[in-house]
């Protein structure tokens, strides 16, 4: 039947073109032009891959900067990206936030509730958010200083050096990448 021939013909024809040729060609070209990005923006330390630049990592040690709460299991699991999906009137949402606020207050000397940005206690959309706001980084300095003995001023300088400004001055807002910050801290601790 003519229609069936057309149905199958057009399906297969387009499949070869956009189902096979397109992704394979794009992969090939990308591997040549942008090999670093195309292979996952690998961040290396002493030759070993310690991070994928855009993917957040879980830090709960006092001596490192903490990222945002992650709803994945375990936290910051790139194989199971997910938000919490908690609705705005869900008791659990408020419990989680309050618990997180309490944790920050307990672990950080001198921290007051009204210094904590909401993003620092609210979980991200992917569970892999690598970034925090500058304020979120600054409020953690007393804790890190206490745990590592690094001068607060040094830590503040590290934070300032790692501020990522809006792209082209337009897109996004100033933030810091937690993995980057912690790499800097790691280097200070392990010279």
């Amino acid at each position: 039947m003519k229609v069936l021939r057309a149905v199958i013909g057009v399906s297969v024809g387009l499949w070869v073109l956009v189902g096979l040729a397109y992704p394979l060609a794009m992969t090939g070209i990308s591997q040549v032009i942008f090999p670093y990005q195309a292979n996952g923006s690998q961040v290396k330390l002493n030759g070993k891959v310690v991070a994928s630049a855009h993917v957040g990592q879980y830090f709960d040690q006092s001596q490192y900067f903490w990222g945002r709460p992650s709803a994945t299991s375990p936290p910051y699991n790139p194989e199971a990206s997910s938000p919490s999906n908690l609705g705005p009137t869900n008791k659990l949402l408020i419990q989680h936030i309050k618990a997180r606020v309490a944790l920050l207050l307990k672990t950080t000397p001198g921290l007051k509730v009204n210094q904590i940005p909401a993003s620092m206690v609210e979980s991200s959309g992917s569970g892999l958010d690598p970034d925090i706001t500058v304020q979120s980084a600054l409020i953690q300095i007393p804790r890190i200083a206490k745990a590592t003995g690094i001068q607060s001023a040094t830590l503040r300088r590290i934070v300032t050096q790692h501020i990522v400004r809006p792209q082209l001055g337009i897109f996004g807002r100033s933030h810091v990448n937690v993995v980057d910050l912690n790499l800097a801290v790691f280097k200070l601790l392990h010279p």
Partner: protein
Amino acid sequence: MSIQTILTWAVVIGVFLVTLKPLGTYMVRVFTFQPTILDRPLKPIENFIFRVIGVDRESSMSAKEYSLSLILTNFAWAVGAYILLRLQGQLPFNPQHFGAVNPQLAFNTATSFTTNTNWQAYAGESTMSYFSQFAVLSYLQFVTPATGGAAGIAFLRTLSGRKLGNFFVDLTLMTTRLLLPLSIIVTLILVAQGIPEALSPYLHVHSIVGQTQVVPRGPIASWEAIEHLGQNGGGYTNANSANPLESPTALTNVVLTIAMGLLPVAFFYAFGVITGRRRLGWTLIGVAGVLYLVMLALLYFPEAAGNPIINAIGLHTHANMVGKETRFGIGGTAIFSTSTMAFTTGSVASAHDSFLPISSIAFYMAMFLNMVFGGKGVGLLNMLMFVIITVFLIGLMVGRTPEFLGKKIEAKEVSLASVAFLIHPLLILAGTALAVATPAGMAGVFNPGPHGLSEIIYGFTSAAANNGSAFGGLGAALPFYEVALGIVVVIGRYASIIAMLFIGQSLLQKKAVPESAGTMHTDTVLFGGVLLGSIVILNALTFFPIMALGPIAEQYLMMAHHLF
């Protein structure tokens, strides 16, 4: 509101405004078979396909043949996709060694991707092999938006007094002339910004604190490009475009936002070009544009003001960042969310379930209307359906048989348009009612209180509108939802497309009435206002009760600091 937010929005909207004319005109040239610059590289490929299937580039079909070809082709894809997903374990490009996809999920995924809904009841990074991602799902993300675009183009041809055209030709050209070239450009931008494009296995990372992370890779950038250019919305990973692997920077967020809107907006302009009524094209762009801005405002201001219950804790900032990414902020998230809903893409850069109830009304609004530009072609079809209903409703008030584009709107068109209008609420309301009334349906609810009802409504609305985004909490992987939503997406997709094709054919057969002072003009600000009003009122009347029970009730409860 920061200057960055304003500039980001201005860039996105500015790009739409700058590109709609050249892209819309190009589209009309392609589909009226006039020469374009891409003829030289692409014509041989297309001609090869046409020769194989034995159709002539400029041949035409009847509405019945066109619909039948469309349905048969889509059916073939669904069957093919189902088989390939079931055979995943035996197929190549599977470095993570994922096994066969289970039957229900394979059915749900095949129907959902074939209908351009791209609702996902699975997490891509832990379910699908590279082959399934690019050769099955990414392929469908090319050809299914091309299907909707083809139907839209066929309808436009009839409005311009041309024959309907040939479905197979339109499908091919939509793929080769629009989606493929744009995808290549967008892919390269995305890779440059840091989205992986590789076939090597998942990356193992050992962090400085001794933890191991497995970072998915694959042809993600090429997927992202077509996912958005085709208003598909199926995420490569579970978190979709909130995942830094799919959208690593604020710039990729903006590029994806723009990619979604390019073709739907240009389609509205193409309508003006092909019918020779540019002013009417601009009127419709204006109406959809106003609704787009309303959504943008709804998705920004309440979110920036935050959840009063959380604000009571007394934090440093008030913006609702639950489920949002730091690099996008409230402003970048708002424009992405507005676009993904307006253009019925359904990808997400944030957790829609965690938006404030009042903001979420923008999500529902977009999906109820399904024409705030909408998916390319299909959104325009829906807009024109509302135009026909509005013209008829109010057109009588000028003392003439209502006309649209010079064609009298009579019983046949009114009936077809009304039926097309009816199907959408039928699917949403009946589906929601069924889910609430059955334990199987209620089992999928994640959040307590009215928000749980909102999740169900969102699920069925998203399916009926072929949007594909979700209030992620809903247990969409339950058999009840896999089957019910699978059925809803199929009816929601094809019923209105086919009704509109038949309206087009019926209009084509009518003699055009010349315009006079007695003709109600549809290309005026007045008509634009009336159209907007009737769209809003007709939909509000249909959906106000369920909105009252879901987001409106929850909003008032939230303002009263009520928790569930």
